[in-house]
């Protein structure tokens, strides 16, 4: 209950932060929306029409009540509601981020476990080196190299991701392989390095020695005793790496011209479409808070020793 109240408080602070940001734009929100070339009279009319001359507290109340009713604002640049734009883009990004996270998690956990079993071998050092390199690699550069080799030189995959609705991610999978590879390869190291040290800790525990002396095979030790104990904290790590994954999605979508929420964010920044930027920021921040809450709750469910209060 305390954890839930905290999440709600943080979400509330997020709306306050975005509101303050929006109201401190150069020239104020009216100029930001209507543009710098609008006449003073038009600006005044716009200010009055949109209630921007009311006291700030009232305006924040209006903004909050709009948000709670699911109204994220209106993009005057696109002449569309932010909700409509998000409804179109969000599913595409969920497919991209979801698939990449799943693959990064699967490869990361198995690699880390494998390294722990063969610790300090040549393979272990090679894999550690490789994970450092991918961890240090800017997402956009990895994407560019993949395009250079697999699209331009070898013609294996198209340079662009599918452009239509989100279902095309499944009907044209060849266009999704490089974006998903880009986003997952740069995230594997986070999981594999954690899993390696966490599994090594478990191997050193007394209960593993007991199980081993009872004659259990390595396979049994890994599956029944290590994965559960070393793997559960990964859920927390997953929650914490959500913002990074979303930042990565902005880049990946820009490089592969994948029309999801990341590309929308980038275009909004270039076009100075503040209403859209703020709308996206709120929705993403709330998604991160909810993601962290879910990962905390899942953690305490899977590991009853941890009580979430």
């Amino acid at each position: 209950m305390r954890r839930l109240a905290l999440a709600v408080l943080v979400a509330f602070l997020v709306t306050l932060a975005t509101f303050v940001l929006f109201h401190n734009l150069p020239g104020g929100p009216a100029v930001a929306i209507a543009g710098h070339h609008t006449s003073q009279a038009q600006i005044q009319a716009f200010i009055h029409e949109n209630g921007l001359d009311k006291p700030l507290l009232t305006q924040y109340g209006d903004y909050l009540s709009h948000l709670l009713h699911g109204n994220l604002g209106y993009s005057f640049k696109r002449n569309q509601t932010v909700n409509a734009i998000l409804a179109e883009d969000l599913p595409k990004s969920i497919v991209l981020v979801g698939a990449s996270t799943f693959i990064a998690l699967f490869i990361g956990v198995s690699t880390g476990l494998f390294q722990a079993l063969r610790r300090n071998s040549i393979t272990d050092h090679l894999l550690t080196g490789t994970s450092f390199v991918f961890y240090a690699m800017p997402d956009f550069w990895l994407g560019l190299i993949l395009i250079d080799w697999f699209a331009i030189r070898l013609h294996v995959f198209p340079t662009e991701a599918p452009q239509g609705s989100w279902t095309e991610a499944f009907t044209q999978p060849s266009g999704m392989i490089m974006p998903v590879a880009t986003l997952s390869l740069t995230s594997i190291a986070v999981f594999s390095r954690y899993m390696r040290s966490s599994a090594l800790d478990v191997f050193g525990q007394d209960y593993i020695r007991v199980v081993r002396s009872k004659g259990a095979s390595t396979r049994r030790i890994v599956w029944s005793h290590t994965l559960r104990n070393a793997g559960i904290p990964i859920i927390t790590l997953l929650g914490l790496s959500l913002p990074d994954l979303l930042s990565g999605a902005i880049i990946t979508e820009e490089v592969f011209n994948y029309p999801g929420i990341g590309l929308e964010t980038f275009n909004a920044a270039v076009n100075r479409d503040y209403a859209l930027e703020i709308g996206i920021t709120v929705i993403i921040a709330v998604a991160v808070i909810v993601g962290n809450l879910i990962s905390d709750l899942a953690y305490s469910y899977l590991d009853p020793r941890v009580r979430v209060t």
Partner: protein
Amino acid sequence: MSGHAPFVANVDPMEAATGDAPTRRLAVARLALFGTTLGRWGTGLLVAVTLFCFLGPVFYRTEQVRTNIEEVLASPNAHHWLGFDGNGYDELGRLMLGGQSALEIGFVAALLATLVGTLYGGIAGYFGGVLDSVMMRVIDTLLAFPSLLVLLVLFSIVQPNFSSLVVVLGLFAWLVPARLIRGESLTLRTREFVQAARLQGAGHGRIVVRHLLPNAIGTIVVNTTFQVADAILALSTLSFLGFGVPAPATNWGSMLYDGVDYAATGSWWLLYPAGILIVLTVVALNFIGEAVEEALGART
């Protein structure tokens, strides 16, 4: 530590474990940077990249202000080892120039982040209670925003240049050090030497600055190293999206932003060298951070 025994060489572990505080810290640093495989590779790589960027132009002189229209996109040759870019700048010389600003912005932004984060976390942890709760909720709130998203929003308002990049990158990276230092100072404040200082009448400011923070120096140093790596990556990413330092200044990310269109038509020298330099620098810094972290862990 036994698992890492083969990596430790030249430095007597006892030396690192005894002696007064400054000598001990120096010994740990020496052990970390020169006594471990990771540390040696990291230090070597970082020194090599730094020399390349700052000393390279002395030996390999190029024109980096005026463009040379006749040589636009010229291939590498004996005099211009990595050819020319799409504006007619010598690419190798530009990599050195771009590296200078990448390293400078990265280091200054990381120092700023560490300074702000350390003070913030130190104060929150030292006073604890309601103040700590409020200060930590502020951090939770800011951590909910994916950093790149906020950076994009900010740079659609502010013109990117050296100082605005340093300030914005720095101010978005202080959250993690603040959390770490807060944790350290929460435990440190209960220790006897802090109580002794308080009994002697030391003020809060003096206790935080003279007694808490110096004892958290290990965490601070390790985190700063990672911060530099992160700042260089964030700078490259922002610059690749077109929000970099204005021309004729450049950095590796901006060079990739400028070169990406030509790279598709076979100008590989505009795509690979800049990216490889980013990776080498970030790997080197991460190696150093890991090595120091491990050496500090070995000490306790």
